[in-house]
């Protein structure tokens, strides 16, 4: 990022390509529409690009990136709720192609993934963000705390409650 601050566009492109997949993945699980998730991911990179000459290495780049993404996601969800949209009604697994005929295991795996995604979508935003940052991005509790602007103890509690909720929802009989 220090190279980016010095005006090295190639350094920015390297960061962009490295962080685009995890960022899009995170936002796609946070906001209702896939297209909107991509727009928000672009907005995150645009803000970083425009602020590159003011960057101060006080925290890891990923912390900065996901902090911006989290704030944009919360704003988006707030707008969605005002428009009475339900979040994440189209789980990612629903958009995958059907498994090959006879692939019983894959079908079972797809069912489990669908159930998990539906349960994830119903978690409160901060619980969902904390769990996703831990499980999918591999961030530690202290770093998640920086992203969410919370304490490490709060993050521990958010992740505990998120997993408890997921397990409880997965235990519910399918409707």
């Amino acid at each position, binding site marked *: 990022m220090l190279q980016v601050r010095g005006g090295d566009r190639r350094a920015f492109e390297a960061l962009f390509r490295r962080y685009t*997949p995890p960022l*899009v993945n995170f936002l796609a699980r946070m906001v209702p529409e896939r297209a909107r998730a*991509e727009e928000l991911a672009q907005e995150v990179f645009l803000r970083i690009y425009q602020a590159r000459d003011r960057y101060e290495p006080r925290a890891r780049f990923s912390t900065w990136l996901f902090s911006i993404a989290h704030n944009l996601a919360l704003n988006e969800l707030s707008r969605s709720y005002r428009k009475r949209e339900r979040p994440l009604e189209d789980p990612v697994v629903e958009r995958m192609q059907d498994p090959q005929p006879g692939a019983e295991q894959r079908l079972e795996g797809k069912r489990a993934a669908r159930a998990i995604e539906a349960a994830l979508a119903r978690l409160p935003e901060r619980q969902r963000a904390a769990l996703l940052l831990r499980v*999918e991005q591999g961030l530690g509790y202290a770093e998640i705390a920086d992203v969410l602007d919370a304490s490490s103890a709060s993050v*521990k509690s958010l992740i505990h409650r998120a997993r408890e909720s997921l397990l409880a929802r997965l235990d519910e009989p399918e409707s």
Partner: protein
Amino acid sequence: MKGCEAYNHELDAYIDGELDPRTSELLQAHLPGCGACTGALGRRESLEHVLRSLPPVQPSPQFEARFWARVARAEEGPSWRERWFRVPRLAWVAGGAALAVGLALLVSLGDPALSAQDWAIVADAEGFDLVLEADPELLAALDVLESWRGSEEL
């Protein structure tokens, strides 16, 4: 010595590697003799496995090209249309209110409203203008009309 409920709250930090070493040791000592906590840990580990195996959402192929197009637009600066519509909503309201007040003042300070008869005279005069442009010989007739209108107003 903690009870199962207290340990249950530590299980997530334990599988995330975030539990302090002392509590971690106590939990490890507790687990072999406690079916409930071992079961709860196993369920969390299974959940973790499924969460980690979720198919990632991939960016669309045009993502990078669209981003650089957006950067180019941002560096060009906003168009006149964008600048116009960026005027805060309050400014629009204030401008509209000022315009309304201005119009009201104009109406109240200006000439009194024309009567139906006045409008008829205006319409007649406009009709004569058109005729005059076509036939200047009727100029004298207009003079007669104007002098007649003046005497009517007096």
